[in-house]
């Protein structure tokens, strides 16, 4: 059983982070990306061609993370591979002991720098989750047996900040029925939307059936916030927040404190089981955020049976 699954099953607080994209530089390049915060996180996501830009493959990066002693979450999107390739990546990951698989639809090819590419979407994300679930039950989609069945811990994403707002929890429940056991929610800069989503998640039973992990954006510059707002599909950053950071005497500090504010808000929501920390381009202080929020290191959390930080 993966550490992430173990912590979630034990009812503990979990902390994950998104590895900055990797293109070259060997294992050192992978390690230097997470070294600043390696003592804090339970697992790190190996992303899959984020925003439809090609990078080192999630399977390769997940294996690298594992070789470096860090637990990976392998993301898989439906945009670039048909069902055979997706199944191959899942069993390939399991072959290397990678159990955490996070299944996403994926941004469209038009969001990327090779918009002329063919979009695949042979499966959609609930179908991908169900496919992973079938594999963990010892079968490919065809029904062909896999013995012994690989153990998987399957996750998904849902976006509380995109319409149709009232259908998002229902869609997440569909993903739970397909096999999802954790959610790394999409970044959402609208606190009211987060509150509404979490309220509905608790009331509908979603939060009891799957661990909901809220994503937090940590950046070093207001221009990175503008990039997220303009270039990342499904995320809106209110312009007053960007301008607030731009006008600050120390814009980098203002961006950090903005992330800390959203993190504290997320932790105050009933049903939130952890945080997923995302930086763009440059790592922006994940360890510092943990210290500011009073989140102990992973080792301290494990030994103390830590459940939830006090929101500050």
């Amino acid at each position, binding site marked *: 059983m993966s550490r992430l699954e173990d912590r979630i099953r034990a009812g503990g607080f979990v902390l994950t982070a998104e590895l900055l994209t990797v293109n070259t530089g060997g294992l050192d390049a992978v390690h230097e990306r997470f070294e600043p915060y390696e003592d804090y996180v339970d697992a790190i996501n190996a992303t899959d061609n984020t925003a439809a830009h090609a990078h080192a493959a999630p399977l390769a990066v997940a294996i690298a993370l594992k070789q470096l002693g860090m637990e990976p979450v392998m993301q898989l999107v*439906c*945009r670039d591979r048909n*069902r055979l390739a997706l199944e191959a990546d899942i069993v390939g990951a399991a072959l290397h002991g990678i159990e955490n698989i996070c299944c*996403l*639809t*994926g*941004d*469209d090819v*038009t*969001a990327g720098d090779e918009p002329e590419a063919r*979009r695949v*979407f*042979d*499966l*959609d*994300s*609930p*179908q991908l989750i*169900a*496919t992973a*679930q*079938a594999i963990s*039950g010892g*079968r*490919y*989609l*065809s*029904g*062909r047996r896999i013995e012994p069945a690989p153990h998987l811990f399957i996750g998904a*994403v*849902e*976006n509380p900040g*995109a*319409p*149709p707002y009232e*259908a998002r929890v*229902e*869609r997440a*429940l*569909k993903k739970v*029925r*397909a096999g999802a056991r954790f959610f790394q929610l*999409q970044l959402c800069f609208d606190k009211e939307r987060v509150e509404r989503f979490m309220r509905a998640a608790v009331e509908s039973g979603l939060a009891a059936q799957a661990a909901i992990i809220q994503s937090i954006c940590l950046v070093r510059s207001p221009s990175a916030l503008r990039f997220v707002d303009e270039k990342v*599909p*499904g995320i*809106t950053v209110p312009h007053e927040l960007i301008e607030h950071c731009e006008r600050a005497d120390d814009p980098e500090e203002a961006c950090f404190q903005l992330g800390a504010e959203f993190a504290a808000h997320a932790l105050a929501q009933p049903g939130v089981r952890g945080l997923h920390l995302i930086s763009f381009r440059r790592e922006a202080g994940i360890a510092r955020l943990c210290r500011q929020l009073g989140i102990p290191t992973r080792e301290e959390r494990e030994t103390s049976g830590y459940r939830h930080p006090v929101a500050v």
Partner: protein
Amino acid sequence: MAGPHGPLAAVEYAVKKPIWGCQMCGQCVLHSTGMTCPMNCPKQLRNGPCGGVRPNGNCEVKPDMKCVWLKAYERADKLPVWGEEIHELRPPVDNRLWGTSSWRNYFSGRDKQTPEGWA
């Protein structure tokens, strides 16, 4: 999309294209998606909207088009029957059926066949 194969498919296409923008996937799920064809979603998602829907409710890929799934949920709510079916998990598309008549596949049961490993 695929062109219709054979006379029955041609009739089906002639009826369903103007009304629902039928793409001839051959495994019609219109009734369970608020009579809104999910194959008009640029990602052809059959189980609900992606996370890229714009704040105004329009499509990530086609900014001037309303998200197919927003329409689907709104219409499913208003349907006197089938409304709840929108929440069901629909299986992956059988890509062998493109261009064939979904009417024939419905009555023969062909459109209910799923791979053995599909729960």
